[in-house]
């Protein structure tokens, strides 16, 4: 039922201008929940629209289920798509919206009615058949769009920021439902989002895009714990970035950031010259008091966020570090001005490509 999508060397440029998508290679496995994540203008939506057939790649090949579909028109691709603003037909009832794809496939009326009922039941919209889209809430419209896309039993389901217009609570519950639905149907799902939390929460794998190029493809934990590039480390979650010169020996490499700060690096091969490293705030352990550990600083501000506290620590040399401590219920956060020592292990530092 579900299909593998292979994107081979695909580029897209408009009128000879800069490339919106630049030589992308990726393989999306059958039944996988795959996210394209990046800031606006990174090429994620263009990539999705090329898979859907609304844009033609300037170069490269797209294969679905082993078949080259690069030149196949959109209406013959057999893919379901959920559009950003749902794109429900405003002049058609919910039932007619969902039935549309089946009607185009010339399915008999009785079979259409049965399938539509099933699809609407799947998205918990039974009883809304005769409403017009304009009479539904955003969340309900979203479900209709989803039902309309899955009722045709597509090989591939494409979602363009489908949850972007929903409020936070509703978005969270839809995240669970969409993920559940995808697993039940076993369909290959390509999900475009600029929301890194959403991507981390839902995806089997994520491709992080920036300026038309793939920065990294990996599981959510790989992307978060082992970001490959400076961009990924910075874009996904909070991170402390350091840049400096390699010093020390092969057995015990270190990074000299400035006169005040030198970081011990994990042992690695092939390091040389200028290097960037990332350090997640939650890996930084704070101890009140001034001595020991990797660095000393003073609390500049504390941002209480319920489950944890995010501290901004001033180091010597006008440098700042973010540190996140779990709220263990031991009382008020450390006051501004408190001297602290910062600790981490060299393995917490991730070496990043530029």
């Amino acid at each position, binding site marked *: 039922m579900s299909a593998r999508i292979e994107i081979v060397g695909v580029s897209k440029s408009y009128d000879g201008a800069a490339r919106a998508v630049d030589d992308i290679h990726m393989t999306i496995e059958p039944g996988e929940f795959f996210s394209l994540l990046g800031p606006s203008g990174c090429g994620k939506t263009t990539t999705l629209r090329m898979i859907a057939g609304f844009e033609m790649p300037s170069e490269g090949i797209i294969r679905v289920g082993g078949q080259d579909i690069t030149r196949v028109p959109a*209406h013959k691709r057999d893919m379901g798509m959920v559009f950003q603003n749902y794109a429900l037909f*405003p*002049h058609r009832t919910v039932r007619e919206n969902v039935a549309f794809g089946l009607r*185009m*496939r010339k399915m008999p009326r009785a079979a259409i009615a049965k399938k539509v009922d099933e699809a609407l039941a799947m998205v918990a919209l039974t009883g809304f058949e005769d409403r017009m889209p304009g009479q539904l809430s955003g969340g309900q419209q979203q479900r209709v769009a989803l039902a309309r896309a899955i009722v*045709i039993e597509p090989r591939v389901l494409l979602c363009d920021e489908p949850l972007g217009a929903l409020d936070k609570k509703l978005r969270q519950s839809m995240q669970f439902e969409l993920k559940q639905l995808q697993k039940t149907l076993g369909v290959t799902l390509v999900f475009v989002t600029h929301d890194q939390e959403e991507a981390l929460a839902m995806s089997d794998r994520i491709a992080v895009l920036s300026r038309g190029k793939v920065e990294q493809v990996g599981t959510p934990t790989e992307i978060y714990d082992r970001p490959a590039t400076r961009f990924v480390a910075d874009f996904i979650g909070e991170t402390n970035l350091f840049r400096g010169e390699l010093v020390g020996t092969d057995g015990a490499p270190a990074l000299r950031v400035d006169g005040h700060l030198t970081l011990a690096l994990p042992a690695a091969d092939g390091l040389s010259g200028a290097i960037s490293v990332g350090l997640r705030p939650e890996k930084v352990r704070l101890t009140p008091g001034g001595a020991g550990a990797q660095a000393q600083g003073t609390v500049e501000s504390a941002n209480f966020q319920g489950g944890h506290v995010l501290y901004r620590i001033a180091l010597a040399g006008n440098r700042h570090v973010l540190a996140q401590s779990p709220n263990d219920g031991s009382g008020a956060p450390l006051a501004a001005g408190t001297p602290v020592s910062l600790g981490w292990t060299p393995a917490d530092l991730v070496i990043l490509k530029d």
Partner: protein
Amino acid sequence: MSRASARLGAPRLGANVMGLALLPSALFFALFFFLPIGLMAVMSFLTGNPVVMPNVVATTRHYERILDDPYYFEVMWTTVRIGLYTTVAALLLGYPLAHLMARVKSRSLHALLLMAVLMPMLTGIVVRTFAWMAILSDKGVANQILQALGFAPMQLMYNEFGIVLGLVHIYLPFMILTLTGVIGRIDERLEQAAQNLGASPLKAFCEVTLPLSVPGILAGSLLVFALAISAYVTPILMGGFQIMTLPILIYQQISANFNIGFAAALGMVLLVLSMVLVLAYNHILAAVSGQRDLA
């Protein structure tokens, strides 16, 4: 002044200002629209002009004359037929262009198209009609080319074809501008969604964009139809009095026969006729696009 009173005062002031702003247009319509139509309605039931004739009496003889003579039905039908041809032709010619203008990505191309559509409107109707006459008359440009190519000359004007051609040329911009506004507001992604669900581009257009543009088709057609059946200059010049329409007949009754009562009765017939057709057209299109019986 407290904030609460300011908030209470604001909408009342706004409503007053709006009312004041509406006053000129209300006066304009009362003086130049309702009053003349009312006067025309009254005149159509009088034996003569009460301003110059002291002993006028009420009569229905103008309407009896229209009903008794099949000639007037023929004129009515000709007028409506020319209106219908003009409307259909303008719709068929205008829709593709309006669609292109609404969907074109390049701003400069859009501006160019808009200019091309509006440009003819900068020339007067009489001038444009004379230009058509130079092209279409028996010894005009079109026939000379036909003859040079070895074809027999054709009668291209002094008939309904010539009138419709002239009217389409004049009223096409109204159709295009009305349609462009409506089509431009239809989300392109709806057609893409239809294609994604398996509809060919043509099918997607027919299923989505066309039914959603019905309000524009309705508005544009009504506008063109109303303008075409009340047109006067073009039917006279392009028809050369060979084709009689209601506006020409009315003009003749006033200027040549001085029969203002009969002219007023014909005017009322034209008004009622177009109102009935407008209502019927509205009704039919609303039923067709009733949006659910299509599925």
